[in-house]
């Protein structure tokens, strides 16, 4: 990894800077020209389907894996040349949260604290603090192997924050947890906001939406979209979405819609059901409600029978699905051209 010749100077307000990161395994690229930045104190959600390159990117950020090319800087320090220094700046919780089964919670935190160079006299107080923060005081003398999954996740988080690093990286911290445990872990991550820079990857999209300031969607090793959940909704799905249940002459629908609002487009259209009704999804760039106008126009026109009209509030899941679908289309298109 070339750490020296960056065209950009390191910005002190940025905790993480990634430029044109590439990682290939035996000719197959797991991460392809990924660039992003994370500001200090920000919580970034890392989204992507399985095998998108999330874990690989996270491992490169921690200095555990070397990159094929590109620049990664944490708090201005390049990972490639000063990995040992960078490792002191991060708390990392890998995928599946591996923990030794035959240690007690407090013993494990003491061992990890010593490895992270916390002085002995401070370590006891710090362990008490993180046990309190992660609500682990009740199980501090329990063997880790006998703990429930929720407690194990919290031990992993306690371990990641014990040395008070400026950057926390967590690979799927809420995987396999029940809703109550997810709530606890979400509050715990939320409590770090402003104090630490946090990157979390997750498949549980509502969690990301609630916890994260910004979301980065990655697919097939490329960044597909980045921004706050609201920005992503606008960018990927348009400003507003409407759902119509309609029967009638479909070829006449688009001109009618354009007469109401020129930016209205038909995004999705289902096959007609037994009664001849089709479900349509409309997108528009207008933010103000168009429902009433649409209703009036469709009722006034005798060619259509309207059964339902509603404004859709898309979830991050819709954004995620649309964004990843878009990249697959982009990736698949050249193959189709060559095949043709």
């Amino acid at each position: 990894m070339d750490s020296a010749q960056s065209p950009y100077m390191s910005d002190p307000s940025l905790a993480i800077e990634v430029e044109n990161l590439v990682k290939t395994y035996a000719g197959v690229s797991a991460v392809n020209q990924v660039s992003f930045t994370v500001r200090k104190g920000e919580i970034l959600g890392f989204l992507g389907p399985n095998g998108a390159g999330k874990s690989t990117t996270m491992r490169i950020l921690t200095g555990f894996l070397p990159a094929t090319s590109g620049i990664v800087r944490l708090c201005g320090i390049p990972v490639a040349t000063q990995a040992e220094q960078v490792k002191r700046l991060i708390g990392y919780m890998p995928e599946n949260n591996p923990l030794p089964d035959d240690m007690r919670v407090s013993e494990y935190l003491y061992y990890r604290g010593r490895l992270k160079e916390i002085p002995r006299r401070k370590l006891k107080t710090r362990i008490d603090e993180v046990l309190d923060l992660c609500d682990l005081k009740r199980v501090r003398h329990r063997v880790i192997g006998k703990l429930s999954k929720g407690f194990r996740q919290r031990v992993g988080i306690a371990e990641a924050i014990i040395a008070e690093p400026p950057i926390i990286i967590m690979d799927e911290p809420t995987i396999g947890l029940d809703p109550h445990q997810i709530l606890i872990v979400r509050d715990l991550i939320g409590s770090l906001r402003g104090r630490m820079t946090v990157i979390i990857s997750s498949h549980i999209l509502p969690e990301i939406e609630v916890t994260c300031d910004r979301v980065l969607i990655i697919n097939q090793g490329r960044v597909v979209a980045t921004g706050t959940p609201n920005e992503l909704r606008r960018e990927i799905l348009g400003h507003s979405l409407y759902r119509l249940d309609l029967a009638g002459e479909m070829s006449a629908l688009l001109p009618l819609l354009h007469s109401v609002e020129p930016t209205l487009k038909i995004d999705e259209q289902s096959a007609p059901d037994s009664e001849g009704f089709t479900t349509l999804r409309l997108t528009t760039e207008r933010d103000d409600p168009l429902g009433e106008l649409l209703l009036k126009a469709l009722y006034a026109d005798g060619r259509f029978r309207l059964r339902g009209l509603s404004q859709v509030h898309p979830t991050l899941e819709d954004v995620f699905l649309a964004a990843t679908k878009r990249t697959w289309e982009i990736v698949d298109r050249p193959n189709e051209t060559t095949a043709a």
Partner: protein
Amino acid sequence: MRHFFTILSHEIRMLLVSPSTYVASVSFLAVMGLLFTILLEQFSQQPQEVSPATFFFALFWIPVVITVPFLTMKSISEERRLGTLETLLTTSVTTTEVVVGKFAAAYLLYLSLWASTGGFFWILRRFAQDARFFDPGPLFGGYLFIAVSGAFFVAIGIFTSSLSRNQAVAAILSGGGLLGLIFGTHFFEQMEFMNNKAFHPLKVAINYMDIFRHLGDFTQGIVDTRQILFYFSGCVLALMFSILGVEAKLLHS
């Protein structure tokens, strides 16, 4: 090596709470106790030319082949299987510190197991009341051989543990490797074709590596620095391969 002592104390603790350590210790002491009893019976039936210590240390390979795999099989393979090696190496700990820390813990335990056999000789001296049974020369030489050769044997165990995520595979590899090293050299040296002049340099090299010859020298009070260098360099080489093995596997993880 800032984190060496943290890892060492952790590893010793983990070895002390691991059942495989107690299986290794109990089987070690049971086998050694049994061998010592058989040996004393032989001595009581007819006069022998050498001291009990010489006989006792000649059987060193039995506990080595059983104990070393048990003590070392878990060290790296278990960390790789659980994935805790990843959390370990994302702190500022180096692979060298991890491997050397694990080696040192297993080696210290190996030494303490052998040190406990000193009790056999103490009991012999206490009850036989005969100074001839307690010849300090072979005893000291024997324990020195155990300490020096043990470093190499334990390092081989650590190396095989770095090769597989499966503890059983690591144990079989290290047991097989140790048997090959201890008997292979001895066996090769005895083969007829080795007397051919063309193989003379090979024979010299194998003769230099013959572990039973080293044991003979040590128990006779001959401390050859070349032999110490053989075990030391073998130990360093095995540890270096372990470090390289761990790092190579990380690149493809």
